[in-house]
């Protein structure tokens, strides 16, 4: 089942926030993550797909059928909410069986299917518990089981892991991916956690101020962001304001940077982008290639286990770096091929 959004726009009454001309095509069985900063419109988009809001313009198609005016109950979509939205007066099994009850499925079959879902969600023995007697992670698994039990056409996940602690988040996101693949269900996963999106999604869509900036595989998105906004939002990034000198060189606060600047007018303002892990580091300058090499010192050194993330000050400018090395760093080099230039105008 595919899910298509064609130039969908929506503005909240009396406000400027919403989404504008969003087009997105999610293929059958695909998990597409929607990411973006708070207020960028990602939850609004989900509400439009679920039918809780109606677009001002544009078309939403679910399984090839336009769903304009179709109420949420008739869209046959499984929705998992940030707050879990479990019914507090129903047990876990009753919560899971509820959509089956609504579809007139006999009690015995309902029980059997709810039990099967509890088993798949690793909740054996928890069926008779009320939501208040379950942990956050267990509640979220019940919510997921409830959204899947009636074989919906697609699954919509609205920040389903944001209320959990870090350890549970990592474990549950893999479970979500496992269940999604097991069911082969088309899924849209809204999250503000880019790591979560990059780790489980087939494709990631980046929203900013109501507009869709880029839809790509996690790797493409990380390696080839379409503009400075995407580059800044996805992963860590160095974005240095720069002036084009010629087609092989730009001038930044750090100093002159050799890079590929062909096609850009000398004197134009750009942003020089490179990832922190692309920096080369050394305890002394002579260990590094001469191109784009700078001496200086570390001003902030953050130990992240396998990695070190540091701020490097050359005296003229500052960059963010990452390395697995624990040695002293007094020099860095930026490989010219690691640098991409974005027109400064596209920076939001």
């Amino acid at each position: 089942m595919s899910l298509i959004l064609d130039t969908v726009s929506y503005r909240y009454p009396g406000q400027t926030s919403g989404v504008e001309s969003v087009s997105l095509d999610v293929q059958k069985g695909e998990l597409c993550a929607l990411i973006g900063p708070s207020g960028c419109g990602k939850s609004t988009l989900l509400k439009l797909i679920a039918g809780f809001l109606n677009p001002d313009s544009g078309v939403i198609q679910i399984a090839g059928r336009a769903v304009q005016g179709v109420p949420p109950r008739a869209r046959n979509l499984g929705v998992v909410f940030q707050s879990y939205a479990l019914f507090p007066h129903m047990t876990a099994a009753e919560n899971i069986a509820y959509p089956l009850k609504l579809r007139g499925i006999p009690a015995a079959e309902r029980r059997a299917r709810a039990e099967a879902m509890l088993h798949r969600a690793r909740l054996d023995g928890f069926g008779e518990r009320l939501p208040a007697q379950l942990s956050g992670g267990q509640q979220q698994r019940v919510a997921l089981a409830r959204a899947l039990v009636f074989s919906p056409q697609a699954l919509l996940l609205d920040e389903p892991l944001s209320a959990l602690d870090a350890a549970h988040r990592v474990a549950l996101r893999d479970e979500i991916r496992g269940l999604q693949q097991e069911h082969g269900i088309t899924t849209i996963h809204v999250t503000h956690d880019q790591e979560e999106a990059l780790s489980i999604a087939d494709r990631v869509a980046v929203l900013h101020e109501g507009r869709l900036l880029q839809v790509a595989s996690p790797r493409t998105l990380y390696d080839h962001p379409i503009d400075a906004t995407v580059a800044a939002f996805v992963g860590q990034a160095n974005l240095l304001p720069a002036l084009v000198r010629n087609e092989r060189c730009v001038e930044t606060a750090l100093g002159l940077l050799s890079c590929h600047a062909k096609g850009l007018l000398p004197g134009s303002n750009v942003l020089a982008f490179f990832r922190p892990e692309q920096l080369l580091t050394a305890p002394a300058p002579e260990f590094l290639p001469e191109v784009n090499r700078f001496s200086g010192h570390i001003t902030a050194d953050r130990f992240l286990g396998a990695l070190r993330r540091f701020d490097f000050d050359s005296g003229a400018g500052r960059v963010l770096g990452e390395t697995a090395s624990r040695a002293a760093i007094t020099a860095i080099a930026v490989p010219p091929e690691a640098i991409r230039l974005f027109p400064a105008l596209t920076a939001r």
Partner: protein
Amino acid sequence: MRLFLLSLPAVLVLGLFFLLPLTLVLIEGASLEVLARLWNTADLRAALGQSLLLGGCSGLLAVIIGVPVAVHLSRLRPSVRAWMQVVIALPLTFSGLIVAYGFILMLGRAGFITQVLAALGGDPVVISGWFYGPLGLALAYTYFLTPRVVLMLVPVLLNLDRAQLAAAASLGAPRWRVAVDIVGPQLAPTLVASFCLVAAVALGAYGTALALVGTQLNILPLRLYSLIADAGSDFPLAAALSLVLLAVCSLIMAVAEMTIAQWEARHVRPH
């Protein structure tokens, strides 16, 4: 010590106007002989039954009227809702006598509505006849009981998790199923509690009843009044009757409290 001094006026008031009278009533009425006399008086037993019926019916009516009003209020903008709640709570500030007077002006023999209906061919005596009986009393009680129900229900409706309603809709529930399966069960404890509260209030209400039906209607508060005020006053029996009224009202309120407490113990996650 300072805190105790601050609470001293309240303690004095409580002692003088609650504990002391209660003790005196207990001394006067809580004897087997008086309670047996009360139980053996058939019309006093009937008064208890009629009071419970009146309290139950007017309480039920108040809940039936109060629920849609509360639902409507919960959907309004906060500023509009605040004003509406002030208006709705106004009957709570009126004394029972004023309420009775207002109803007489509307539905008494010379009342506005009675006169309009009389002009349309009705008989004012028949029309106002029902008003000066149990039905009219239940209607008047409903007037000042409904705001209590509304004020109890609105916060619960406002605190309902909207995501649950959206979740139910996305799972395939039409509106009526959302109301029956999701909202109803979560509202039920407060409905029971509000019914108990207003039924208990109705059970002990006195001013409105006296003004509307005099001492003709056989209900506990009016019998109590008769036992104290009439020439043949019987203080021990009045004290025993007070204790019965107190016990019944306390029992009803205990049911309300236990309903809420049990529901919260089962469904609200401890923090």
